[in-house]
């Protein structure tokens, strides 16, 4: 067992032990460990890539959203403008219509009033006529109740008739 001459026994046991360690660790330790490490690294890389892609997608979505919002705003403004216009139109139309209606009603009323007045005047005329007849009848009756008076009347009438 000298320092610089390798002892057979130790070489023998070293070859066996180291060989066994190499085989066992190779199969049951290094293989699974390296596999898991590789898979983990892969999954981390994948996750980072996914996050990057998601970020990009998000940015894209944001700009798209902004576009959509702008579009919606424009549309809203347009709709509002149109609605206002329509409302104004409707109001103007209604005003026009009501004015015409009013005019028509006024005309009709005037017409009706005129007709009523005509009718009233006619009625009044009739009544005045009948009243004057009645009055003249009554006056005649009272005038003619006395025979002298009857006579003078006749005289008058005759005179008048003669003169004619």
């Amino acid at each position, binding site marked *: 067992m000298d320092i610089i001459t390798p*002892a057979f*026994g*130790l070489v023998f046991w070293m070859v066996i032990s180291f060989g066994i360690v190499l085989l066992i660790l190779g199969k049951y330790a290094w293989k699974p460990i390296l596999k898991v*490490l590789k898979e983990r690294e892969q999954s981390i890389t994948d996750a980072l890539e996914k996050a990057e892609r998601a970020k990009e997608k998000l940015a894209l979505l944001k700009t798209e959203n902004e576009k959509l919002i702008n579009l919606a705003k424009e549309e809203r403004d347009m709709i509002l403008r149109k609605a206002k216009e329509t409302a104004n139109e409707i109001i103007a139309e209604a005003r026009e219509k009501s004015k015409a209606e009013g005019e028509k009603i006024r005309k009709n009323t005037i017409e009706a009033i005129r007709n009523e007045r005509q009718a009233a005047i006619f009625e009044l005329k009739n009544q005045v006529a009948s009243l004057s007849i009645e009055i003249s009848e009554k006056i005649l009756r009272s005038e003619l109740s006395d025979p002298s008076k009857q006579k003078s009347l006749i005289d008058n009438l005759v005179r008048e008739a003669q003169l004619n």
Partner: protein
Amino acid sequence: MRIFSLIFLFFSVGTEIVYGSAANGDGKKFNAGDFIVHHIKDAYDWHITTIGSHDISIPLPVILFSPGNGFDIFLSNRFEHGKTVVNGYRIEHNHIIAEDGRKFYDISITKNVASLFISVFILLFIFIKVARSYLLNPNKPPRGLVNALEPVLLFIRDDIAKPSIGAGYEKYLPYLMTVFFFIWINNMLGLIPIFPGGANLTGNIATTLVLALFTFIISIVVSKKYFWLHIFNPPGVPIWLKLPIPLMPVVEFMGVIIRPSVLMIRLFANILAGHIIILSFISLIFIFAAINTWLGLSVSAISIAFSVFMSFLELLVAFIQAYVFTILSAIYFGMATEVPHHNKEHH
């Protein structure tokens, strides 16, 4: 190697000071060189401590096989430190020798082998547990032990294997991870001074030889034609360096052999040196205590401070050496499986 031999020589010659007369009176000398060598070398028993003149150690099984006699299996304490002959075997200076000089193979469970088994158990326990926790919570953030180990796993995958090997690096990950954690755990176990640790497994050349051989064999098995073409006909080299004497091919081929050898020596030497330095600081205490008790006490303060510092440094070295071994293995695999560059451009 020579440097280490010199260090041992220095300690064994310069520090043979009578220690026992000052300490326990049995006249036993403290020899720093023996003390250090004893700790860094393999042994048939796991020595824990010595109280007085009584050694406390765990006997380990001795397994001997000789083609004529078959197996002999018994506990190392039956040798009684060399006093007894067991089944025709005797222990002498930490070596087992056969009395009748017959040829035999020693596959005893020595201190390093026992430590190897402990580390194997720890490795299997930790990583099967970690794997189970990964499978149970595949997409959850890691917690506890898994959380502590995940950066290391990712480090091996992303900073060692991927840049060094290139395409198809996944195939080598199980080996690289096993070798990394095997070396790291054993380096750290070696730094623990008492029982479950304390063996010098990664500072033993047999261990690093086997690890380097694994790397070498794998790199040869997976090597492509381009790799060998590069060695036997190096491009961009003047023709007179290849013919008639194949100078460059020889140099290149030597490189193939030298690479795993360097891998073996680097890990072995680094860990061994770390152990020796820490043990040297500890030895200083006994050397000075042998001169004078008070001197020993004052030196111990410095020595302990230094060995604590060194232990921290070794903790770093434990990781660095595991890293270096792993990245060099990965680079060698990358070299062996390299494909010509112009081919890549065309595809």
